[in-house]
């Protein structure tokens, strides 16, 4: 069974936020909210500095606490679509348990009242397109695909390159990996 995920090459990413802007227009994310964002992690002291730039979003965890805690089943795993984690708006009561349950603070309450977050552009993926943020990235540092398929580009990259996931210790088994 497919497990969709992302592999993002931090050595190429320039933190330009094109992925953030593309998400806003593609998905009509309301002004004042974002489904993806950039983190800058600088270490060291000038002039010996290392900088990691990361494009972050919902990690579509394989053990998603946001799904476990949802009292209505609104937050669910889309089994036949690479186990993407989605929210069914018309099941959501806006209790915000899922917001509290996410170690990545990836969710927010949409102005219309339901919990919202990155959908991995399910509407595009269904059509065989890449997510908008992946398709726009000018440095081509983002890769989307089936982590469970050993022949997929993402699996190959994880095979061949040094990588880490965010807050792996939080135990949610995130599906986004960062090459370093």
């Amino acid at each position: 069974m497919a497990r969709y995920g992302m592999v993002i090459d931090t050595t190429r990413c320039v933190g330009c936020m094109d992925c953030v802007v593309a998400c806003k227009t593609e998905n009509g994310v309301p002004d004042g909210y974002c489904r993806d964002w950039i983190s800058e992690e600088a270490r060291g002291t000038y002039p010996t500095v290392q900088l990691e730039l990361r494009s972050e979003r919902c990690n579509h965890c394989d053990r998603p606490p946001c799904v476990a805690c949802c009292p209505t089943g609104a937050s669910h795993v889309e089994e036949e679509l690479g186990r993407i984690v989605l929210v069914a708006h018309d099941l959501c009561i806006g209790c915000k348990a899922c917001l509290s349950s996410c170690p990545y603070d990836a969710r927010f309450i949409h102005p219309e009242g339901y919990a919202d977050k990155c959908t991995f552009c399910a509407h595009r993926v269904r059509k065989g397109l890449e997510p908008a943020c992946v398709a726009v990235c000018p440095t081509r540092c983002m890769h989307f695909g089936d982590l469970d398929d050993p022949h997929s580009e993402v699996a190959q990259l994880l095979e061949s390159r040094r990588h880490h996931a965010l807050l792996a210790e939080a135990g949610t088994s995130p599906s986004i990996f960062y090459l370093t």
Partner: protein
Amino acid sequence: MADITELTVHRLNPMVDPGLHVWGWEIPVYLFLGGLVAGLMILTGVFLLRRRQARPRASWSLLSGLGIALLSLGMLALFLDLEHKAYVWRLYTTFQITSPMSWGAWILLLVYPALLASFLLRVPAALRRLFPVLQRASGWLRGRPGLVRWVAMLDVVFGTLLGIYTGILLSSLGARPLWNSALLGPLFLVSGLSSAAAFAHLVSRDHEESTLLVRADNGFLAAELVLFVLFFVGLLSATQVHIQAARLLLGGPFTAVFWVFVVGVGIVLPLALQLLAVRRRIAHTALAPVLVIAGGLALRFVLVYAGQMSHWR
């Protein structure tokens, strides 16, 4: 790599950044009232099992009635917190076994009948006159001691479930290290019981019962202190993030409120007063129980607010 000197997160979502603050006053109030009612039910159940119905001036008969009212207030607070109110009914079109909140929704449905039944055992005169049917039902029920025992036991069981649930609700949210403690359930249950005892003490007009309640309450308060110690030992002996989280209450932004209002004014002071009162050093007053109840409320506020602030990053 050298340790981080700067972490800049270019995200600013309402209620999420700079620190999570999705829950305001509603949830603490709901958790408090839920715990209080849980305590009231257990007390009622125990009184009934101990066949205290006979005592005319005893508080038990009032508790379940008030319980219904308080619980309804709590549910109202919970409802007010919902962001997608029109869809609230979705809670009852499904049961999500992994979701404490789903459990809670259904438990509340079970709690009401139990409360109602024990309420029926002695319906206030005014209501009886208004609805003769209550009179008849009440009579029918009281004529069946076996059934009354069942009601009493349901009170105890559902009360306990409800009390623990209010704690589990938080402790199940693994992303908030401060809440990652199995002791949160017991803690909220005991705190609920002590608030309930204090509450009953306030309404009781039966001297022997009050002393009984005060003794019980002292026990609960003492237990609470012990649970707190264990709670912190647990966090401090866990991972770095849990230690960071504990620091919110030990030398962090919430330290003052926690120690002054929750522990000092809410537990230690009333405990002292009531110990003296029990030893007849001072007279019983409403002060101690009021402090206990306020402390119970403060506990929910501090834990809900500080807990949201705690994070893994």
